[in-house]
């Protein structure tokens, strides 16, 4: 936008047109105090703190040119009254005065007035020390008040707005930042005003109260101590805290966090600004869900099973035992009798070393990062292959971009994406949400579609056909293979046929295809429900991105929402049985988690090492297998159900107690720092793995296989009938056998940068770069404007990896697997719904625990009527695998033909009925008595 020249307090400078006066003055280094204005929200001019004198050049009515005075300067017509700076946009030649007596009189008056109903209880207020009201009063306010303290209106102190947020009504200055945040940014309009005059107050309008996944952010933006979090209430004073930069590992967004510590104790979690990841927000899961770090049930010492009991042992003893037992299994049964499962919440360094140990020492490819349940979905490759292009920044995307969200519920799977997608919408982007059932993102969508349950693949094929009909392959700029096959596959299914299969009108499919083609930038986000349709789904979405030219450039590509904080890292590091780091395909695959359990029972696998996963809690099969196993090592934070079955339990350090890097859904690698000392004797996972490796080398176990070459292979991953070039073209030269003497994780990161394709240049020093500061950074007035929200990111914003097809190194296969006809032997499709607040171990000890639901099965009204089921009835599900009894809910949002159960709840497992990511079930009411 064109710049305009303005004069503030006699200083003339240029600012972009359309800027409001408050921001414009800030550009010139001049502070205008504000309470209600917040740069992320629309100005409302409620608090009157930003009153300034504004004048514009007087125009000659005849010529529309500024009239010039006797001194040759434009005549300025000052507005008769003070104007609110936040709602006044600048114009050419505008003159602004922020320091005149009149303005100062107004500022003092506003502050004196605001303080008449403020209790001045700063000594006990959690905001004290980072409170804009304190700061502005000191800088602009009157020295004293004419208002008698005893005349103040007092309210009963804290009221619970929700479980997590408390409201102190007498401190509130009614700026409506919280209300506007919930309305505009979070789209959870749960807050509102009630009463009027001195009794004007904020209330929660929802049931349960303050029902939002983003409620914690309102405490950050509250300019007074009116909203405080139940988590930090009266824990510490803010000046006692030191902020430690870490990365959130609770979901694939990878929000940048500050762990505010007093000495060695976690006091609160705050967002750290990162425009490319979380802006200045975090969700409640990240904010409140880090109490596991200090939970009293954390493991503190290694445990060894002696005589049927786990007893405390020293590290040396435990590591030596692990090395000895694993070496024994290897020498007697070969390395393939050892399996390793590592959690996707571990860091890249841990995961890399884990697979390195298995591949180099044991020669075993029996690796996985999933628990091995029937519901595990296929490894997601396309999120990396066709991932968003390097340089993608959702903060900068807006007009002319389109986001297609398909089979995903970002609010539950990766909550912060809701805020980021909504911010894109605000800037003019289009949002198409296609799901089998309504999700909360629908309210924001420009187009929302519901396909028939289980027909997402047909929907995407319809889209592909519509795109292909319109532009053919003219936008396909990638090296590719299988175009003819694609042409043939697509010709089998017309848009109309696809429309019939998926229940979305053909013209809607065409319109979405058209919109996707017209958009300059296109993102395709898919989540758990899409991935549960099988690998064909991500493959089809990849082809859709390729055909529409929405790949290999900034702002375009696929975003896969995978479970856990670092699933992408686990895939990149090759913690899977069928590929090495960098998706280098193996000609001979090992056993995945799902195959490990029967193999353990049959004795083909003798020993298993589980790092950070708890399969025994969910899977009866895993429990039986672990009981049958010869030797089980578990590396964990807690004594989980799996750890209780182990022969050796090794206490691992949590994310706060170690350094590491994590790769998020957009393939941005971010570095997390150590925030506190190790818990007890817990050690970082990479040290544990290295410790075992060192003991193994003392036992002089020969390195099992030459790892010097990646197998040249055109064999597809898992034999799924499709070639993915990386194995052919990515030559990894692995150097001399490693010595296993890493001193710091940065040394492992350096090795990863050297050896893992795509990670070149991802060193710790490179990750520390902060790039351009955000809007927040260190700047004029920030402490006064945004105190409590100025989370300067001085520790690095991370680096986005290029996707694998960037640079045309890899040919993309366009061949699609045929559309399978869904079987309908049972009446309902059992879909597991990912929830943000589920049985994740990491939520232990947090206030979110009470928001974890009890197990239930949700049905549509139609099905409930048909089966004569009322809410609360006990029902029995039966599938080809088994039976399960649950209580029923009847929910409007569930489409007919679907039985929805929450995934991963504590003390509940649907494994009894699951035959795959999706299961056909019958459902009958259980009549008791």
């Amino acid at each position, binding site marked *: 936008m064109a710049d305009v020249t303005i004069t503030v307090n006699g200083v003339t400078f240029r600012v972009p047109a359309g800027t409001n006066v408050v921001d414009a003055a800030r550009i010139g280094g001049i502070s205008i105090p504000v309470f209600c204005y917040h740069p992320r929200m629309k100005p409302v001019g409620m608090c009157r703190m930003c009153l300034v004198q504004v004048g514009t050049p007087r125009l000659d009515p005849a010529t529309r040119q500024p009239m010039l005075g006797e001194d040759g300067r434009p005549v300025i017509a000052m507005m008769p009254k003070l104007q609110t700076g936040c709602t006044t946009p600048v114009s050419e030649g505008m003159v602004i005065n922020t320091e005149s007596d009149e303005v100062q009189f107004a500022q003092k008056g506003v502050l004196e007035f605001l303080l008449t109903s403020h209790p001045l209880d700063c000594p006990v207020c959690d905001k004290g020390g980072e409170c804009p009201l304190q700061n502005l009063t000191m800088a602009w306010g009157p020295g004293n008040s004419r208002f008698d*303290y005893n005349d103040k209106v*007092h309210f009963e102190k804290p009221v619970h707005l929700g479980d997590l947020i408390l409201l102190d009504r007498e401190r509130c200055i009614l700026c409506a930042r919280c209300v506007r945040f919930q309305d505009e940014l979070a789209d959870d309009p749960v807050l509102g005003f009630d009463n009027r005059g001195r009794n004007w107050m904020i209330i929660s309008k929802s049931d349960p109260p303050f029902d939002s996944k983003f409620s914690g952010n309102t405490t950050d933006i509250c300019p007074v101590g009116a909203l405080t979090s139940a988590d930090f209430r009266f824990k510490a004073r803010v000046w006692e805290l030191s902020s430690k930069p870490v990365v959130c590992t609770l979901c694939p967004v990878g929000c940048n966090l500050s762990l505010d510590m007093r000495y060695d104790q976690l006091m609160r979690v705050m967002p750290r600004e990162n425009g490319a990841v979380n802006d200045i927000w975090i969700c409640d899961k990240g904010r409140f869900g880090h109490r596991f770090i200090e939970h009293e049930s954390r493991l503190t010492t290694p445990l060894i099973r002696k005589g049927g009991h786990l007893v405390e042992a020293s590290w040396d003893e435990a590591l030596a035992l692990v090395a000895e037992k694993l070496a024994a299994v290897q020498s007697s049964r070969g390395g393939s009798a050892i399996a390793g499962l590592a959690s996707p919440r571990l860091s890249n360094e841990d995961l890399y070393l884990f697979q390195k140990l298995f591949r180099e020492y044991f020669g075993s490819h029996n690796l996985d990062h999933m628990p091995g349940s029937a519901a595990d979905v296929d490894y997601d490759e396309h999120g990396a292959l066709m991932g968003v292009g390097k340089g993608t920044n959702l903060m900068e995307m807006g007009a002319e971009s389109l986001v297609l969200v398909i089979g995903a519920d970002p609010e539950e799977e990766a909550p912060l994406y809701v805020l980021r997608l909504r911010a894109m919408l605000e800037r003019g982007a289009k949002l198409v949400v296609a799901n089998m059932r309504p999700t909360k993102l629908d309210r924001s969508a420009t187009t929302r579609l519901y396909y028939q349950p289980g027909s997402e693949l047909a929907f995407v094929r319809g889209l592909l056909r519509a795109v292909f009909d319109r532009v053919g392959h003219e936008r396909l700029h990638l090296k590719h293979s299988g175009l003819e096959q694609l042409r043939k596959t697509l010709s089998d299914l017309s848009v109309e046929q696809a429309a019939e299969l998926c229940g979305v009108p053909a013209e809607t499919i065409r319109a979405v295809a058209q919109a996707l083609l017209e958009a300059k930038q296109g993102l395709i986000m898919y989540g758990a429900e899409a991935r549960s349709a099988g690998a064909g789904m991500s493959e089809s979405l990849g082809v859709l991105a390729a055909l529409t030219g929405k790949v290999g450039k900034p702002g375009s590509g696929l975003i896969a929402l995978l479970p856990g904080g670092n699933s992408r890292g686990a895939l990149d590091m090759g913690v899977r049985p069928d590929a090495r780091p960098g998706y280098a395909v193996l000609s001979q695959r090992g056993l995945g988690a799902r195959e490990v359990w029967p193999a353990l029972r049959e004795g083909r696998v003798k020993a298993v090492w589980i790092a950070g996963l708890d399969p025994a809690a969910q899977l009866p099969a895993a429990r039986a297998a672990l009981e049958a196993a010869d030797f089980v090592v578990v590396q964990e934070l807690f004594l989980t159900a799996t750890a209780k079955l182990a022969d050796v339990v090794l206490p691992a350090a949590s994310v706060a107690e170690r350094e590491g890097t994590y790769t998020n859904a957009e393939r941005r690698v971010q570095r997390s720092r150590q925030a506190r000392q190790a818990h007890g004797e817990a050690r970082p996972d990479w040290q544990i793995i290295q410790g075992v490796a060192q003991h193994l080398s003392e036992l002089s176990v020969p390195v099992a296989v030459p790892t010097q070459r990646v197998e040249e292979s055109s064999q597809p991953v898992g034999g799924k009938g499709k070639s993915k070039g990386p194995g052919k073209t990515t030559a990894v030269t692995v150097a001399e056998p490693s010595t296993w003497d890493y001193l710091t994780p940065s040394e492992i990161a350096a090795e990863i940068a050297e050896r893992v394709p795509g990670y070149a240049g991802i060193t710790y020093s490179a990750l520390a770069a902060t790039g351009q500061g955000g809007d927040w950074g260190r700047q004029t007035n920030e402490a006064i404007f945004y105190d409590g929200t100025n989370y300067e990111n001085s520790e690095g914003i991370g680096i986005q990896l290029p996707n694998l097809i960037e640079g045309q190194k890899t040919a993309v296969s366009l061949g699609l697997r045929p559309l399978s006809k869904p079987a309908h032997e049972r009446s309902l499709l059992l879909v597991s719904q990912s929830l943000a607040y589920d049985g994740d171990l990491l939520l232990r000890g947090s206030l979110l625990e009470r928001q974890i639901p009890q197990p239930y099965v949700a049905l549509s009204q139609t099905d409930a009527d048909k089966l004569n089921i009322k809410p609360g009835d006990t029902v029995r599900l039966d599938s080809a695998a088994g039976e399960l009894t649950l209580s029923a809910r009847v929910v409007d949002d569930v489409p007919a033909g679907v039985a929805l159960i929450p995934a991963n709840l504590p003390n509940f497992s649907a494994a009894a009925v699951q035959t795959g990511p999706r299961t056909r079930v019958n459902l009958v009411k259980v009549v008791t008595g």
Partner: protein
Amino acid sequence: MIGQLLKGLRTTFGYIFTQPVTVQYPEVKRPVRERFRGRHELKRFADGKERCIGCSLCAAACPADAILVVPAENTPDHQVSYGERYAATYEINMLRCIFCGYCEDACPTNAIVLEHQYELSFYDRRDSIYTKEMLLVPEDQGHGDAPPILTQLERRPSPPAQIDL
């Protein structure tokens, strides 16, 4: 010669017959001045409620970083002080303390006062940390009434920043 000796010792002999200034500490203890800054005490109101509201301003003011306050929330069943907040932990490291009295100045409720006790010696460094139990005056030795604003309302109001107690 002898005359010169006597001359030299005149002052000495003179003092033989005056009252000595030294006292036989520890048998005899010299009273300190009213504004002497000795060991701290945590005060109470006359009704026994603690004056300390756990605001940590003493710790913030302390130039020697000798004070640790860990606050907690009052509940209706466990009302330690007036208002919402009290000090669950209050510790002063007497080896660090320089007895400057800034904590006293910073205290919004006159809860911490440097009193006249000066006998602070320890065999162990750990003993130099005085805990809340050691610092707090007995329950029946409180003084002053809580400001009406705090007591008259059944609303757990908090003490304001500046109030004359």
